[in-house]
Every structure is written in C-alpha cells, then in structure tokens.
C-alpha cells in the first residue's frame, strides 16, 4: 500500500504551561496587569513518525515519558504546540473501561450515550447493540441501571462498546490491564481480530506481553523524546535498558548496540520450553519450565557464568547467577546450550525473563530480546504476588474429654 499514511505525527512538540499561583478570576482581576508566575513543561519534543493503514504500533515508556500526551494528540483532544498531527478517517479511543458511564442509566442508555460520544450515529448503534450485548454477555441486564452491574459486567460492557465502535484508527490506553485473566484473554483475542480486519491500532501500554503479541512496530518514549522506533522486541529491550538506568539511551539507535550485546558469544536461539518439551509462552505456575539459550562463541572466553532475571512491569522479581566455582571457559567456535530450569510460582499475569552468559566484568552473551510469557495459576489462588502452592486441609482431632458434671458425693 503506497497510499498516504493513516496517521502522521510531523515534528510535534507539546508544551504545558503551569501557573504557580492558583488561577482565580477574582485574584487575577485584583492584580490586573500583573503577569502571574508560570512554568513551562515540554511534554513532547520533536516527535516524528507515521502509521500506515492496518499497522499496529505500540508506544512504551515510563510514567512521565509523554505517552499520555501523545495519545491525547492522536485523539485530537489537544493540539500540538509545534508541528502537525494528521489522522485520516474516524479515530476513537478504546475508552478506559466504563468511562462516561452513568450509574443511574441502564446499560442500553449508556451504550447509546457512549456510542454517540465515540462518533456513531443512532442507527449504527442500534445495528451493533445485539453484538455489544452478546460480547458483554449481559442480555438479561441491558435494561438495568449499571450501578447494579458486577464489576465484570461493567468492564465487559465498556470494552464491548469501544471495540464495536469500529473506527478506522483505534487508540488503546492500558485497557488490557484490567479484569480477570479470562477477560483479558477475550479482549486480546478481540484485539487480534480487529487487527486482522485491517484496523489501524495504536497501543499505549505497560503490558509488554500484549505489546509484543500485537504490535508490528513499537515506539519508545523517554522524557518526551522519541528514543526508538522499530522492531517491537528491540523496543522492549531498549525500554528495559532505560528502566534499569543501565544507559541513558544515547546509543540505542546505533546498530553497534546489538553487536556489543552479542559479542563475543552469538545467540543462536532463546526459548521457553514448557513441561511437554515444546516451546511455549503460557505456563502454569507450578510447571517446571526451562529457559534455553544456545550460544556460539566467536573467541575464547574465560570465567563464564549463567545469569537469569525474571521481572514484571513494576519490578525485578528474581535475579540469580550460577556459582563462581561452576564458571567455565570456552574456545572460539564452541557451541553451548544454557538451560535454566525453574518453577514460575507466580500469580496469573504477564512476565518477562532473560538469560545471559556473564563474566565478572560484564555480559558475554545475552538474548537482547527478553522473552515474555504468561503464567496461569489455579483459580483457587486468591491473592498475593506469588503462588507458593500451599495445600490446605482440615482434620478432626481426638476430642478432649468432656468435663464431667460435678455431682454431690452422697
């Protein structure tokens, strides 16, 4: 498709002006003519990219990197201070679930209100209503005020309205992070369908698993600047480098980065092997699974140890390195299979893992693209961060002898 891009972000900068004193009409009128002190914040600087029709692009970055500002610019709710934003076709956000729903109104009334806000005509809403009810599976409750909905029903309805609005460009803001696992999977499936139907999608998310699954291309924002725009797996690595502060991201666009990470060992493959012995991305919390990294050495390397790290979007959960005594030396041309076997013991969710060969003074070989995987834990797991696989039981003990009634010694 050599047509015009669907979305053009052309050297866009966005400045926010913050007034230091609370802006009050009364005080401003009293101090007429005085400038109030204000500070400026550039939320985005010179952002430049395009999205082609049918592409799915991810946007990642820490809090405060400018992600939400970019999303607002794409939605058209705010204008650029400099540069140009252009969108062809109808753009609609996948509204954070249930935003704009009014508690007193019924499901049907809320669907009408939300659908209209998303730019649908009344007849389009009527046409889609059966699908919406079906997807949200709330047929008996569509004429009940949403305040009586369970949180699950509420979320499903919110998602269904947004998804079935079927715009030309769909903006997704973190919605995949809500709901139970089954609902997340259902949303993800639906998103894949939308993607396959040719809808252009822009996703801003912390859920790297979802980004990796969906996005052809990912943009990394850091302090309002575009740090990387390209391959999703690379982007996730760049993001983690920024997150760990290992680099300020200066040389990330440099292809030498890849060589550095892979030298002197070259990665042949990196996989997560499930209990069946096949590569997988979804594992059960109590399975024994294996991270398997195949490396070929280009030059002789001494004192090589194995390192492993597992993390979620917030923090590192597990880091370890094999013992110094087990370090080995390799010759040029040696091929080695590194295996890290472990039991995830985690709650249901999305995680990332990385295996590396390391020397005391740095990384010898590391899969630059960390692997992301989903863990499912048994439904009876009720809360907490880890699944310790506790067994719970109750057993009857021998009864304590009943206190005998005191009777008169007669």
């Amino acid at each position, binding site marked *: 498709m050599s047509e015009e891009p669907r979305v053009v972000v052309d050297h866009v900068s966005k400045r*926010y*002006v913050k007034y230091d004193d*609370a*802006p*009050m*009409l*009364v005080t*401003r009128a009293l101090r007429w003519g005085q400038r109030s002190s204000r500070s400026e914040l550039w939320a985005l600087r010179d952002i430049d990219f395009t999205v082609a029709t049918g592409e799915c692009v991810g946007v990642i970055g820490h809090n405060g990197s400018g992600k939400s500002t970019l999303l*607002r*610019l794409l*939605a*058209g*709710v*705010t*204008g*650029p*201070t*400099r540069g*140009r*934003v*252009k*969108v*062809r*076709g*109808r*753009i*609609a*956000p996948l*509204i*954070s679930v249930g*935003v*704009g729903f*009014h508690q*007193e*109104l019924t499901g049907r*009334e809320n669907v*009408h*209100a939300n659908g*209209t*806000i*998303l*730019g649908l*005509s*009344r007849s389009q809403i009527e046409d889609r209503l059966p699908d919406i009810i079906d997807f949200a599976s709330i047929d008996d409750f569509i004429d009940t005020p949403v305040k009586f909905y369970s949180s699950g029903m509420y979320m499903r309805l919110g998602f269904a309205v947004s998804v079935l609005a079927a715009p*030309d460009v769909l903006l997704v*803001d973190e919605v995949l992070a809500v709901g139970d696992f089954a609902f997340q999977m259902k949303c993800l499936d639906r998103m894949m369908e939308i993607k396959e139907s040719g809808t252009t999608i822009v996703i801003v998310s912390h859920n790297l698993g979802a980004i990796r699954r969906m996005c052809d291309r990912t943009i990394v924002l850091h302090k309002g600047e575009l740090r990387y725009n390209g391959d999703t797996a690379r982007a996730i690595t760049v993001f983690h480098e920024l997150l760990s502060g290992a680099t300020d991201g200066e040389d990330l666009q440099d292809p030498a980065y890849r060589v550095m990470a892979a030298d002197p060992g070259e990665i042949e493959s990196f996989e997560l092997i499930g209990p069946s012995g096949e590569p997988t991305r979804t594992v059960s919390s109590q399975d024994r699974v294996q991270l398997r990294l195949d490396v070929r050495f280009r030059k002789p390397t001494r004192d090589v140890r194995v390192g492993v790290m597992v993390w979620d979007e917030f923090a590192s959960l597990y880091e370890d390195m094999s013992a110094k005594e087990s370090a080995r030396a390799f010759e040029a041309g040696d091929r080695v299979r590194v295996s890290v076997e472990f039991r995830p013991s985690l709650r249901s969710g999305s995680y990332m893992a990385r295996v590396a060969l390391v020397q005391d003074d740095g990384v010898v070989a590391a899969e630059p693209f960390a692997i992301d995987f989903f863990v499912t834990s048994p439904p009876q797991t009720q809360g907490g961060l880890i699944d310790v696989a506790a067994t719970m039981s109750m057993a009857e003990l021998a009864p304590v002898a009943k206190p005998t009634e005191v009777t008169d010694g007669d």
Partner: protein
Amino acid sequence: MSTAEAGFELLGEAGTLRDLIVDTWRSRDLIATLARKEFLVRYRRAFFGVLWALVIPLMQAAVLALVIPKLARFHTPGSYLLFVLSGTVAWTFFMSTITQASTSIVDNQAVTTRVYFPRSVLPISAVLSNLYSFVPTMLILGAITLATGHGSWRLLLLAPATIAACALTGALAIVLAALHVYFRDVRYVVQAALLAWIYVTPVIYPLNAVRGIRPWLEINPVTGVVELFRVATVGADNAWLPSLWWMLAWTVALLLVAGFLHRRFDRVFVDLL
C-alpha cells in the same frame, strides 16, 4: 480540518472559526444525546421526576404572589400572580441553566480528556437538557394565562421568547464554561452574581415602577428575556422594546466572545483539566 472524509489535521493549538462551527453543527446528534442523558439522570431518582421542574417555579411564584402585594403595590399590566409567574419561569430557566452549563467542560473531564468533540457541545447540551424540563413549565404558564383570561394571539410569542432565552443563555454559558476551565472560582463568582442578578431583573417588580436606574435595568440582558415572556402572557410593559434590543446585542456580543475563546482554546482546554 473539516473535509468530507472524517479525520483531522492539527497545525497548532488554535483552529479556525469555520471548522469549529462546522464541527459543532455536525455534533448535533451528540448534543441531543448528552442532553437526554443529563435530563434522565437528573429526574430519575426523584420520586416526582420531572414534575419538580414544574413545581419549583410555580411554588416560587405562588409565595411571591402572596407576600409581595403585602409589601408594595405595583401597577402591573395583568394579574400580579401571572406577572410574577412569567418572570420566575424565565428567570429560573436562566439561573438553573447557567449554573449547570458554566461548569460543564470541567464536570465532564472523564470524557473530554479522551474523546474530541467541540467543547461548546457541553454547555449547549446543558441548555438543551434544561429546555426539556422547561417545555412542560411553559405549557402550564400558557394554561394559567388562558385560565386567568389573559390569553390572546400573543401567546404564540412564547416560542420566540424561548428561542431568545436559549440563545442568550447558551452564548453566556459557552463563554463561562471556557473561563471556568482557566479560573476555577468562576463557579462561585456565578453563584454570587446570580444572587444579585435577580434583583436587577424585573422579576417581582415591573420596569415602570423603577425611577432613575431604569436605563441600567434595560441594559441587563435577562430583562429582555423576562419582558418577552411578559409580552406573550400578561401583557407588555411600556418599555419592553429597548430591553429587547439590548438582549439581542448582548447575545451577539457573547457569541463573538465565545467564538474567539473557543477558536483559540477548544483544543487545549484539556491541558488544564
């Protein structure tokens, strides 16, 4: 940019007035839907529902009609009850609409920060939702006019009177809603202003009872609205025409200010929410 194809192109924070007007016109479905939603929400939980919208101005008029004649005798064109009722009906519409509409952009920030539509849609839909509850009130006003023997062809003027009330209220609401995004005390300034405003509006007294400051009362745009409702029901005050011109002038001026503010700030209101 508003072209036949959906989509937009933003070259800066400010847009063009033409785009803004076209986009607002295209959002009329949205305006109607939001107004209906607002209307349903407001009256669903109240036992008497929309009846409250009727009862409040009627009660207010009844109380005033009982009390005021004991304090002062005004020479009004028709019965004092009808005189004061037509005034309170018009005033209540103005007051309740301005109160609600002037904070509408901030009040709806959950939606405005995520979806674009011209922000003027919000105050306009607030006017429309108040109009829904105003219609039955007006039917009662018409019925009482007929019942008290004041009915004539002039009752038809209730329609243009309502349109004028909506235009003035809407124009002021769009300006205030924009100001409220920047100055959050506009809410309180408006409340305070409305308290004083009713006394400089001929709601409980006729214009011809006032000496000296009368030209100032004629400048008050709400005077024009109230006088128009009087012409339609109880009969005209002899000086209703100048106030009508003032009202029209105010409406045009406020629309110009509204256009200027929204052309500049429509796409950046969100930055301050």
